[in-house]
Protein backbone atom coordinates (compact mmCIF):
# COMPACT_ATOMS: atom_id res chain seq x y z
CA UNK A 1 0.00 0.00 0.00
CA UNK A 2 1.36 3.37 -1.01
CA UNK A 3 0.38 6.74 0.34
CA UNK A 4 1.34 10.36 -0.24
CA UNK A 5 1.06 13.48 1.89
CA UNK A 6 0.92 16.92 0.31
CA UNK A 7 3.11 19.38 2.21
CA UNK A 8 2.45 23.13 1.98
CA UNK A 9 4.37 25.99 3.50
CA UNK A 10 2.67 26.17 6.89
CA UNK A 11 1.57 22.53 7.11
CA UNK A 12 2.19 21.31 10.65
CA UNK A 13 0.41 17.97 10.92
CA UNK A 14 2.14 16.35 7.95
CA UNK A 15 4.60 14.45 10.10
CA UNK A 16 1.94 13.27 12.54
CA UNK A 17 0.08 11.76 9.59
CA UNK A 18 3.36 10.32 8.32
CA UNK A 19 3.81 8.40 11.59
CA UNK A 20 0.19 7.17 11.60
CA UNK A 21 0.37 6.03 7.97
CA UNK A 22 3.68 4.28 8.39
CA UNK A 23 2.25 2.39 11.32
CA UNK A 24 -0.83 1.20 9.44
CA UNK A 25 0.48 0.93 5.88
CA UNK A 26 3.81 -0.61 6.75
CA UNK A 27 5.49 1.69 4.25
CA UNK A 28 6.50 5.30 4.72
CA UNK A 29 4.26 7.75 2.86
CA UNK A 30 5.81 9.93 0.21
CA UNK A 31 6.00 13.56 1.22
CA UNK A 32 5.03 15.70 -1.78
CA UNK A 33 5.92 19.39 -1.83
CA UNK A 34 3.02 21.62 -2.92
CA UNK A 35 4.91 22.88 -5.97
CA UNK A 36 5.17 19.40 -7.52
CA UNK A 37 3.34 19.00 -10.81
CA UNK A 38 3.34 15.22 -10.71
CA UNK A 39 2.23 12.96 -7.89
CA UNK A 40 3.67 9.52 -7.13
CA UNK A 41 1.45 6.45 -7.46
CA UNK A 42 -0.58 6.22 -4.26
CA UNK A 43 -3.55 4.32 -2.83
CA UNK A 44 -4.27 7.26 -0.55
CA UNK A 45 -3.49 10.96 -0.63
CA UNK A 46 -3.63 13.00 2.57
CA UNK A 47 -3.97 16.77 2.67
CA UNK A 48 -2.77 17.47 6.21
CA UNK A 49 -3.59 20.06 8.83
CA UNK A 50 -1.75 23.27 9.56
CA UNK A 51 -1.89 26.83 8.38
CA UNK A 52 -0.98 26.60 4.73
CA UNK A 53 0.11 30.01 3.42
CA UNK A 54 -0.65 31.47 6.84
CA UNK A 55 -4.40 31.18 6.16
CA UNK A 56 -4.05 34.32 4.00
CA UNK A 57 -7.30 35.52 2.42
CA UNK A 58 -9.28 32.48 3.64
CA UNK A 59 -8.09 29.24 5.22
CA UNK A 60 -7.16 26.92 2.37
CA UNK A 61 -7.75 29.40 -0.46
CA UNK A 62 -4.12 29.74 -1.50
CA UNK A 63 -3.28 26.07 -1.06
CA UNK A 64 -6.21 25.17 -3.32
CA UNK A 65 -4.32 26.82 -6.18
CA UNK A 66 -1.06 24.90 -5.62
CA UNK A 67 0.14 22.79 -8.57
CA UNK A 68 0.03 19.62 -6.45
CA UNK A 69 -3.66 20.27 -5.69
CA UNK A 70 -4.50 20.26 -9.39
CA UNK A 71 -3.08 16.74 -9.51
CA UNK A 72 -4.95 15.76 -6.34
CA UNK A 73 -8.19 16.90 -8.00
CA UNK A 74 -7.48 14.80 -11.08
CA UNK A 75 -6.70 11.70 -9.01
CA UNK A 76 -9.76 12.27 -6.79
CA UNK A 77 -11.89 12.32 -9.93
CA UNK A 78 -10.37 8.98 -10.89
CA UNK A 79 -11.47 7.54 -7.54
CA UNK A 80 -8.23 7.65 -5.55
CA UNK A 81 -9.08 8.12 -1.84
CA UNK A 82 -8.23 11.62 -0.61
CA UNK A 83 -8.34 12.50 3.08
CA UNK A 84 -8.26 16.15 4.16
CA UNK A 85 -7.75 16.79 7.85
CA UNK A 86 -8.41 20.19 9.46
CA UNK A 87 -6.69 22.69 7.15
CA UNK A 88 -6.83 19.83 4.62
CA UNK A 89 -10.65 19.89 4.88
CA UNK A 90 -10.61 23.64 4.30
CA UNK A 91 -8.36 23.14 1.26
CA UNK A 92 -10.64 20.45 -0.20
CA UNK A 93 -13.65 22.79 0.16
CA UNK A 94 -11.73 25.64 -1.47
CA UNK A 95 -10.70 23.24 -4.24
CA UNK A 96 -14.37 22.38 -4.86
CA UNK A 97 -13.68 18.73 -4.16
CA UNK A 98 -16.16 19.05 -1.29
CA UNK A 99 -19.18 21.35 -1.00
CA UNK A 100 -19.64 24.14 1.53
CA UNK A 101 -17.11 26.19 3.45
CA UNK A 102 -15.53 26.50 6.88
CA UNK A 103 -15.84 29.86 8.59
CA UNK A 104 -14.76 31.30 11.95
CA UNK A 105 -15.86 29.25 14.99
CA UNK A 106 -19.15 30.60 16.35
CA UNK A 107 -17.48 31.18 19.74
CA UNK A 108 -14.70 33.13 17.96
CA UNK A 109 -12.02 31.26 19.88
CA UNK A 110 -9.44 28.79 18.70
CA UNK A 111 -10.68 25.49 20.11
CA UNK A 112 -8.10 22.88 21.05
CA UNK A 113 -9.45 19.85 22.89
CA UNK A 114 -10.73 16.33 22.45
CA UNK A 115 -14.29 15.97 21.20
CA UNK A 116 -16.63 13.06 20.69
CA UNK A 117 -17.83 12.15 17.23
CA UNK A 118 -20.61 9.87 16.13
CA UNK A 119 -19.87 7.76 13.08
CA UNK A 120 -22.67 8.52 10.65
CA UNK A 121 -21.68 6.33 7.71
CA UNK A 122 -19.34 3.36 8.23
CA UNK A 123 -19.81 2.06 4.67
CA UNK A 124 -16.85 3.84 3.10
CA UNK A 125 -13.21 3.08 2.52
CA UNK A 126 -12.36 5.54 5.32
CA UNK A 127 -14.86 4.53 7.97
CA UNK A 128 -15.40 0.79 7.62
CA UNK A 129 -13.30 0.22 10.74
CA UNK A 130 -16.11 1.82 12.73
CA UNK A 131 -19.75 0.88 13.30
CA UNK A 132 -22.76 3.09 12.70
CA UNK A 133 -23.49 5.40 15.61
CA UNK A 134 -20.18 4.50 17.27
CA UNK A 135 -18.95 7.28 19.50
CA UNK A 136 -15.22 7.97 19.04
CA UNK A 137 -12.88 10.51 20.57
CA UNK A 138 -10.56 12.70 18.50
CA UNK A 139 -8.79 16.01 19.07
CA UNK A 140 -9.74 19.22 17.32
CA UNK A 141 -7.50 22.29 17.04
CA UNK A 142 -8.90 25.02 14.84
CA UNK A 143 -10.18 28.56 14.57
CA UNK A 144 -12.17 28.13 11.36
CA UNK A 145 -14.07 24.89 11.69
CA UNK A 146 -17.63 26.15 11.50
CA UNK A 147 -19.08 24.23 8.56
CA UNK A 148 -21.63 26.11 6.47
CA UNK A 149 -23.42 25.19 3.25
CA UNK A 150 -26.69 26.10 1.56
CA UNK A 151 -29.73 24.30 2.98
CA UNK A 152 -30.18 22.17 -0.13
CA UNK A 153 -26.55 21.04 0.11
CA UNK A 154 -27.00 20.08 3.77
CA UNK A 155 -30.14 18.11 2.89
CA UNK A 156 -28.29 16.42 0.08
CA UNK A 157 -25.37 15.49 2.37
CA UNK A 158 -27.81 14.05 4.93
CA UNK A 159 -29.90 12.06 2.49
CA UNK A 160 -26.96 10.67 0.52
CA UNK A 161 -25.06 9.40 3.56
CA UNK A 162 -22.33 11.94 2.95
CA UNK A 163 -22.00 13.09 6.55
CA UNK A 164 -19.08 11.08 7.90
CA UNK A 165 -18.97 12.33 11.48
CA UNK A 166 -21.04 14.58 13.73
CA UNK A 167 -19.90 16.27 16.92
CA UNK A 168 -21.70 14.60 19.80
CA UNK A 169 -21.61 14.20 23.56
CA UNK A 170 -20.08 11.19 25.31
CA UNK A 171 -23.37 9.34 24.85
CA UNK A 172 -23.33 9.81 21.10
CA UNK A 173 -26.02 12.52 21.00
CA UNK A 174 -25.31 15.28 18.47
CA UNK A 175 -26.60 18.06 20.71
CA UNK A 176 -26.07 21.79 20.44
CA UNK A 177 -23.85 21.87 23.54
CA UNK A 178 -21.64 19.18 22.02
CA UNK A 179 -21.05 21.36 18.95
CA UNK A 180 -17.65 23.01 19.50
CA UNK A 181 -17.70 25.48 16.62
CA UNK A 182 -21.25 26.12 15.42
CA UNK A 183 -21.09 23.75 12.44
CA UNK A 184 -24.38 23.23 10.63
CA UNK A 185 -26.05 20.00 11.81
CA UNK A 186 -23.00 19.31 14.03
CA UNK A 187 -21.06 18.29 10.93
CA UNK A 188 -17.45 17.33 11.66
CA UNK A 189 -16.66 15.59 8.38
CA UNK A 190 -18.21 15.01 4.96
CA UNK A 191 -17.70 12.88 1.86
CA UNK A 192 -17.90 13.80 -1.80
CA UNK A 193 -20.58 12.19 -3.94
CA UNK A 194 -18.45 9.17 -4.79
CA UNK A 195 -17.28 8.87 -1.16
CA UNK A 196 -13.61 8.65 -2.10
CA UNK A 197 -12.92 12.11 -0.68
CA UNK A 198 -13.31 12.78 3.05
CA UNK A 199 -12.76 16.13 4.72
CA UNK A 200 -12.87 16.38 8.51
CA UNK A 201 -11.87 18.93 11.14
CA UNK A 202 -10.90 16.42 13.88
CA UNK A 203 -7.45 14.82 13.81
CA UNK A 204 -7.50 11.00 13.63
CA UNK A 205 -3.69 10.97 13.38
CA UNK A 206 -3.41 12.53 16.82
CA UNK A 207 -5.07 9.55 18.48
CA UNK A 208 -3.63 6.68 16.50
CA UNK A 209 -1.22 5.26 19.07
CA UNK A 210 -1.65 4.33 22.76
CA UNK A 211 1.33 6.61 23.51
CA UNK A 212 -0.81 9.55 22.31
CA UNK A 213 -3.56 8.73 24.78
CA UNK A 214 -5.90 6.75 22.56
CA UNK A 215 -6.33 4.85 19.33
CA UNK A 216 -9.78 5.91 18.13
CA UNK A 217 -8.23 7.50 15.04
CA UNK A 218 -6.24 4.43 14.12
CA UNK A 219 -9.22 2.49 12.76
CA UNK A 220 -9.39 4.95 9.87
CA UNK A 221 -5.81 4.36 8.77
CA UNK A 222 -6.11 0.60 9.31
CA UNK A 223 -9.26 0.55 7.18
CA UNK A 224 -7.53 2.57 4.46
CA UNK A 225 -4.65 0.11 4.58
CA UNK A 226 -7.16 -2.64 3.89
CA UNK A 227 -6.87 -4.19 7.32
CA UNK A 228 -9.66 -5.17 9.61
CA UNK A 229 -9.10 -3.36 12.87
CA UNK A 230 -9.43 -5.43 15.98
Amino acid at each position, binding site marked *: MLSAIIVFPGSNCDRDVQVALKQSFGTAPQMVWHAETELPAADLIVVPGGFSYGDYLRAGSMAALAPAMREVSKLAQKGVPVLGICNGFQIL*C*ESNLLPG*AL*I*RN*SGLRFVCRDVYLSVENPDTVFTRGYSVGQCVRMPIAHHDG*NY*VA*PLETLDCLSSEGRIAFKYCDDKGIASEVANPN*GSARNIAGIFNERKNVLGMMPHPERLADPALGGIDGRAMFEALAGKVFS
Partner: protein
Amino acid sequence: MKIEVHITLKNGVLDPQGKAIERALGSLGFEGINDVRHGKFIELELSETNKERAKAQAEDMCRKLLANTVIEDYRIDIR
Protein backbone atom coordinates in the same frame (compact mmCIF):
# COMPACT_ATOMS: atom_id res chain seq x y z
CA MET B 1 -7.22 51.94 -12.84
CA LYS B 2 -8.01 51.51 -9.17
CA ILE B 3 -10.51 48.83 -8.23
CA GLU B 4 -11.96 48.40 -4.78
CA VAL B 5 -13.44 45.07 -3.78
CA HIS B 6 -15.64 44.73 -0.69
CA ILE B 7 -16.24 41.21 0.54
CA THR B 8 -18.78 40.35 3.24
CA LEU B 9 -20.45 37.19 4.42
CA LYS B 10 -23.77 36.57 2.69
CA ASN B 11 -26.94 37.48 4.51
CA GLY B 12 -28.02 34.40 6.35
CA VAL B 13 -24.45 33.22 6.99
CA LEU B 14 -23.74 33.81 10.66
CA ASP B 15 -21.00 36.41 11.06
CA PRO B 16 -19.45 35.68 14.48
CA GLN B 17 -16.90 38.48 14.14
CA GLY B 18 -19.61 40.99 13.22
CA LYS B 19 -21.61 39.87 16.26
CA ALA B 20 -18.57 40.30 18.53
CA ILE B 21 -17.98 43.81 17.17
CA GLU B 22 -21.66 44.62 17.73
CA ARG B 23 -21.46 43.48 21.35
CA ALA B 24 -18.19 45.37 21.91
CA LEU B 25 -19.69 48.57 20.52
CA GLY B 26 -22.68 48.08 22.81
CA SER B 27 -20.36 47.69 25.80
CA LEU B 28 -18.78 51.03 24.89
CA GLY B 29 -22.18 52.66 25.17
CA PHE B 30 -23.01 52.96 21.46
CA GLU B 31 -26.73 52.51 21.08
CA GLY B 32 -29.09 51.74 18.24
CA ILE B 33 -26.80 49.38 16.34
CA ASN B 34 -29.10 47.07 14.44
CA ASP B 35 -26.49 44.91 12.75
CA VAL B 36 -22.75 44.71 12.09
CA ARG B 37 -21.25 42.79 9.19
CA HIS B 38 -17.53 42.21 9.17
CA GLY B 39 -15.66 41.78 5.89
CA LYS B 40 -12.59 42.38 3.78
CA PHE B 41 -11.50 45.27 1.61
CA ILE B 42 -9.10 44.63 -1.26
CA GLU B 43 -7.61 47.38 -3.41
CA LEU B 44 -6.33 46.51 -6.87
CA GLU B 45 -4.33 48.66 -9.23
CA LEU B 46 -4.98 47.45 -12.78
CA SER B 47 -3.24 48.57 -15.96
CA GLU B 48 -6.53 48.20 -17.85
CA THR B 49 -7.98 51.62 -18.70
CA ASN B 50 -11.38 50.53 -20.00
CA LYS B 51 -13.89 50.52 -17.13
CA GLU B 52 -16.03 47.70 -18.47
CA ARG B 53 -13.07 45.44 -19.09
CA ALA B 54 -11.54 46.30 -15.73
CA LYS B 55 -14.78 45.41 -13.99
CA ALA B 56 -15.07 42.14 -15.91
CA GLN B 57 -11.50 41.30 -14.92
CA ALA B 58 -12.24 42.05 -11.26
CA GLU B 59 -15.44 39.94 -11.42
CA ASP B 60 -13.39 37.02 -12.68
CA MET B 61 -10.86 37.53 -9.87
CA CYS B 62 -13.64 37.57 -7.28
CA ARG B 63 -15.18 34.37 -8.57
CA LYS B 64 -11.88 32.52 -8.84
CA LEU B 65 -10.08 33.65 -5.70
CA LEU B 66 -10.98 36.86 -3.87
CA ALA B 67 -14.39 35.72 -2.64
CA ASN B 68 -15.77 32.30 -1.77
CA THR B 69 -19.21 32.65 -3.31
CA VAL B 70 -20.58 29.82 -1.19
CA ILE B 71 -20.44 32.11 1.82
CA GLU B 72 -19.45 35.57 0.62
CA ASP B 73 -20.87 38.41 -1.45
CA TYR B 74 -18.63 40.89 -3.18
CA ARG B 75 -19.04 44.42 -4.51
CA ILE B 76 -16.70 45.98 -7.04
CA ASP B 77 -16.16 49.75 -7.14
CA ILE B 78 -14.13 51.45 -9.85
CA ARG B 79 -12.31 54.64 -8.88
